[in-house]
């Protein structure tokens, strides 16, 4: 190291002390690294279920930044329908499924309208399936997945994030945003 470089370093240490390391650590918490920068997002997957009550404005703003097509996927828990069928019979299961689907369509319509108002195109899908496995498989075809902390249920005082959301975040390969 030349005299000039070592002089700059000495003066830097004397002037700044230990502050620089703390500042860099704070910046890293919200600056995206090169690996994290999602350079080209063309498709976004937005899983929904009975536990996702609404989409916050901040997520809408983020989605409008990307300008990508959003696929809304509402999943009715297939295992829950099967359980109702086993315990209460087929008619009750059918009624249960219809109720969940009605709720699902309502939510999808609301979100779709909101996206449309912001100039974002969307696709809608609703089906009975497995909330973790289906989304994990589908995520491979998308650039970004926006997951609610409440998705899958089980979020409470002790769980800031639902178990299903936690597993999805750790298992999917696509970039993910947790809201």
């Amino acid at each position, binding site marked *: 190291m030349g005299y000039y470089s070592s*002089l700059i370093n000495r003066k830097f240490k*004397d002037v700044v002390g230990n502050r620089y390391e703390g500042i860099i650590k704070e910046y890293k918490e919200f600056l995206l690294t090169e690996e994290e920068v999602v350079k080209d997002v063309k498709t976004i997957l937005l899983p929904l279920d009975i536990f996702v009550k609404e989409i916050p404005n901040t997520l809408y703003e983020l989605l409008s930044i990307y300008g990508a097509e959003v696929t809304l996927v509402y999943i009715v828990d297939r295992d829950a329908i099967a359980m109702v069928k086993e315990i209460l019979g087929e008619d009750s299961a059918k009624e249960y499924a219809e109720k969940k689907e009605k709720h699902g369509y309502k939510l999808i319509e609301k979100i779709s309208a909101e996206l449309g108002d912001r100039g974002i195109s969307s696709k809608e899908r609703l089906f009975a399936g497995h909330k973790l496995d289906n989304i994990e498989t589908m995520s491979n075809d998308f650039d970004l997945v926006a997951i609610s902390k409440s998705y899958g249920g089980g979020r409470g005082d002790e769980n800031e994030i639902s178990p299903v959301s936690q597993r999805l975040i750790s298992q999917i390969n696509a970039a993910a945003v947790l809201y």
Partner: protein
Amino acid sequence: MIPIETLIAVVVFLLTYALIIDERIHRAVAAMAGASVLVFIGIVPWDSILEHIDFGTIFLLMGMMIIVNVASNSGLFEYLAIKTAKAAKGSPIMVLLLFSLVTAVTSAFLDNVTTVLLLTPMLLYIAKVMNLNPIPFLLAEIMASNVGGMATLIGDPPNIMIASSAGLTFNEFIVTMGPIAAVDLVIVLVLFVLMYGKQMKVTDTERSAIKKTIDSLDERAAIQDAKLFKKSIITLIIVVALFFVHNNIGSMLNVILPFVDPSMSLEPAEVALIGASLILFWSRTSPEMIFEKVEWPALFFFGGLFVLVGGLVNTGVISDLAQVVINNVSTTGEAMFVIAWFSAIASAIVDNIPLTAALIPLIHDIGATSTTIDTYPLWWALSLGACLGGNGTAIAASANVVVLGIGEREGIKITFIDFLKVGLLVLFITVAVGLGILYLMF
């Protein structure tokens, strides 16, 4: 025949100065050691130490350090950095201009070192996102910091020292140095656009991609403590407002509190300490944590410097130098010219703080001795030269060293010569223009 104590005072001063420049020993330790020598052999007796140490400067610095330390805990600077980045809308030229403007304005009211320390990481990140050479951005930030710091009483340590010694008010600085800083900042920005504008051209697609990445940052994520964030902004506004009225606070308070003497004024140090008390009280931040972060070495550095200069005063070195100036300079205009250029060039080579500390008693002596030279404009000439001299070389000011040091850590090398080419050009043009404006004023 030079008296031995005079020789010792000069040698100790120069040796200490050399140690400060080289920085193999911490500057505060060097200054304290030099001061200790002078105190030990009685050149600066104990009872004159308190006369020489400018507590106004030290307490003003301390107060502002406390305020800035508390405010920076809230994420205020990082928030500002992200907002500035987003405002540029993906244009590299706008990034250069906006970051320089924000740096200049922030440096005018808060200390330069903290300003550049907190803004530079964001600037480097944006340069990386833009895939452009970060050097022009870093250099512009340095120049803007030094120019902006010249604008107010609290913007740069030389100004604090000058104000405290000469009894200049915050408003006098704003009125005199503010316009000069504004004009010089425009000059700096125009120079940089002319020198580096071509390198900063990007295609529409690239600009769109840059904007997308920057827009995906959430400035709200930078806010670590929302309540403290708001309290910091309010406190800073109150402190700046108090600085504006510090000289006639008595007449204002007398209206609602008749027992207050209308002629009362607040020293800038008092304003800073009031602001520090307010933010500590209001924020309930742990005082131990904040006091620990006060740059005590810097304060002891100042203390040591004042004693060293006191040695030069006590031994008559300063008054002899003042006589040399008076013998060779006959008008205020000539004196302004000499002071401005000498302090600018000297500040470019050596640290501007010890230089200012030495020139302040010199100007006092000129005022006391000369019948033809008015000292009032000389203070402004000193402020101009000491602050803008910081742009001359890589080691001329603390802000320079901080930005270059951060660059070194991120693998960005700005050589001494690279800096000098730009720095000297900026120095000569800005000092010339600034001196011209001072001549028009006085």
